[in-house]
């Protein structure tokens, strides 16, 4: 009797209805879960069909990839021959062909160092960082400028393309980071004059556009040095860029310094450590680690803004491509040129921003309250 009135074992869970499972279920849950969302989804799909597909058709499917002259362009889609024909000059600028191996070595060394510093598991980070900040710039300087150890001298006038962009970016980064640390410490100093100087310095550079700084570097700096000294144009721009970004860097680092509790400093004082020992061994290691994402974001901004040097007549990546557009053999390829430039900058900046997000997730423990 009991058998017929109730069960003793559980019923197997029935499978969810077809409409809430698999692809269809996903579509229903994410795209068509209500009238408004359905309309939005359809509009977005239409938009993608109108914009993305024609772009892909232009950039990939109908594009011309092979060839060396303009005759290779059929005119239906993008003509990437424009880029490949002048690829060498886009990378090296006007750097003499015989000496380009030197640029390659610097590129390779830079790639190794950056990878070493970026991968968290690599050992001896401190020494590699020290080498990147001091040893690498010297090696790169000797190799790129030449004129010693039997290397042919290459004036900075001949530098250009991606190589110049990376040079400006690396010098800007390597120069502005230490300067920014000093400024940030100075701004938190208890000495009124030191603090005042740092505040004025930081607020001045942060208040003006980079273009005016570059203008200043190109027209005012020559007036500041004795008339007989020939002041290299690239060096002038680099000084301007370094000062400008050190102010932004200082503010990022200052935010990190503020996040470190007062107790850390006081504990250091109680141990009788000097100011520089307290800063170098206790405060800065914690503060800098905290603001790595902010520092990387400043690097990204710096990297993007290296393109501004074209306005004062340096031939960086963008300027080389732009100069190629005025070549009478290759008129009418501005879309290809600028899309390519955008893609190159995008790859660099996007990877940096991804890295900064990764670090942020890794550091997302500890100090956060």
């Amino acid at each position, binding site marked *: 009797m009991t058998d017929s009135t109730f069960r003793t074992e559980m019923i197997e869970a029935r499978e969810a209805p077809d409409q809430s499972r698999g692809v269809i279920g996903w579509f229903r849950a994410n795209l068509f879960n209500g009238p408004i969302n359905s309309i939005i989804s359809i509009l*977005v799909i239409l938009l993608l069909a109108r914009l993305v597909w024609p772009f892909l058709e232009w950039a990939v499917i109908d594009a011309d990839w092979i060839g060396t002259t303009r005759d290779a362009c059929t005119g239906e889609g993008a003509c990437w021959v424009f880029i490949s024909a002048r690829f060498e000059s886009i990378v090296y600028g006007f750097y003499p062909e015989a000496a380009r191996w030197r640029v390659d070595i610097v590129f390779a060394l830079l790639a190794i160092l950056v990878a070493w510093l970026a991968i968290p598991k690599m050992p001896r980070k401190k020494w590699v960082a020290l080498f990147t900040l001091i040893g690498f710039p010297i090696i790169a300087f000797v190799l790129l400028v030449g004129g010693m150890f039997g290397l042919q001298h290459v004036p900075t006038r001949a530098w250009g393309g991606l190589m110049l962009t990376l040079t400006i970016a690396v010098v800007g980064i390597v120069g502005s980071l230490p300067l920014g640390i000093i400024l940030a410490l100075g701004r938190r100093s208890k000495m009124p004059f030191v603090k005042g100087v740092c505040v004025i310095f930081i607020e001045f550079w942060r*208040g*003006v*556009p980079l273009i005016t700084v570059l203008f200043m570097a190109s027209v*005012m700096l020559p007036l500041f040095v004795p008339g007989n000294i020939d002041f290299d144009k690239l060096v002038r721009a680099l000084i301007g860029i370094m000062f400008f970004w050190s102010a932004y860097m200082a503010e990022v680092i200052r935010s990190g310094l503020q996040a470190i509790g007062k107790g850390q400093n006081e504990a250091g004082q109680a141990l009788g450590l000097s100011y520089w020992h307290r800063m170098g061994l206790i405060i800065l290691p914690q503060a800098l680690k905290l603001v790595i994402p902010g520092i990387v974001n400043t690097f990204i901004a710096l990297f993007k803004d290296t393109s*501004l040097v074209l306005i004062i007549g340096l031939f960086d990546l963008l300027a080389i491509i732009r100069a190629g557009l005025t070549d009478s053999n290759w008129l009418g390829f*501005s879309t290809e040129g600028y899309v390519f430039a*955008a893609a190159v900058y995008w790859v660099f900046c996007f990877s940096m*921003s991804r890295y900064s997000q990764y670090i942020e997730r890794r550091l997302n423990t500890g100090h956060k309250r």
Partner: protein
Amino acid sequence: MLRPSTTLPRRGRGPLWRNPAVRALIIQAVLFLVLAAFIGYLVHNTLLNLEARGIHTGFGFLDGRAGFSIPQTLIDYTSDSTYGRTFVIGLLNTLLVSALGIVAATIIGFLVGIARLSPNWLLARLATIYVEAFRNIPLLVQILFWYYAVLRALPSPRQSLSLFDAFFFNVRGMVMPDPQPLDGFSATPWALLVAIVAAIVFGLLAKRRQARTGQALPVYWIGAAIIIGLPLIVFLATGSPLEWALPEMAGFNFRGGINILPELLALWLALSIYTAAFIAEIVRSGILSVSHGQTEAARSLSLPEAITLRKIVIPQAMRVIVPQMTSQYLNLIKNSSLATAIGYPDLVAVFAGTTLNQTGQAIEIIAMTMAVYLVISLTVSFLMNLYNARTLLKER
């Protein structure tokens, strides 16, 4: 190796340099002397160089005749005007493109930022792609792209692309209808002003009423009705005294209508699209910064969804959004100086470009240009500090 110092510095004991106060004084004095010597050296060099090049310093050059023309002038200007006038023209053009850019960037930024939080997967992804694409491409590349690859590639005026037969796009920019006020039009702007004041007064009264009786009036709807309705009634009552001068093809170009330079359009597009990507991120992080507990608490008080958003989420999100947003606005104003790359006549292009080249007064001109941006930045950060102090979380 570091060794803890064994003797504590005390006043009157030990060598003088161990005394922190004395040491601070010495460090500052040395810094002061070094800086003073350095600046003195620079000034000395500069004066020598200026003398050698025969340049006279001073602002007298501002009264000289400019002798060049500027394609876009918001106030009267001819090539007979002074250099001082070119400064004003450039400044106004900078402010024009900045204002247009700020409005557009805010609208696009808010839409994209909210779209990133949308439950609609496609829309959220699209917004993410927008942000990641545009904020990782240098602004200068974007400006050059819009100018050279898009706007300069438009057809000649004869083959203009037209929109509703009122807006025309061609290689010389955009032509749009020009509003021509007739007699009696001046009453409408006054009506608008009165309506705005009335709406504010009404808002205050409604707030007081709510505080007293607990009953809320639909302030936003009534306010909007006043602001739109009153000027409209006045406008119609005075007999619609406004005419639109439609652009017409005459010869090789358009006659009538307002012609907007392609440089302005390119700069405006690039600035708004670029800055909007950053604003979208700020809006998103601002909304996410309001903890979910706030929304849940509002729900448990059975507040309607709209009220929760308007009175609970947005005011708290604004505390995060506004300071970052103003710094983006400042960036936009500073970035508008990239105008010089495509020849939009802004402050840097006109004054620090053409005027500098003609007069050679590098120091004065760069200083004036930088001062403009500095004044704008410092004023805004001052106002921002006031705002922050006002909206700071009041904690006990």
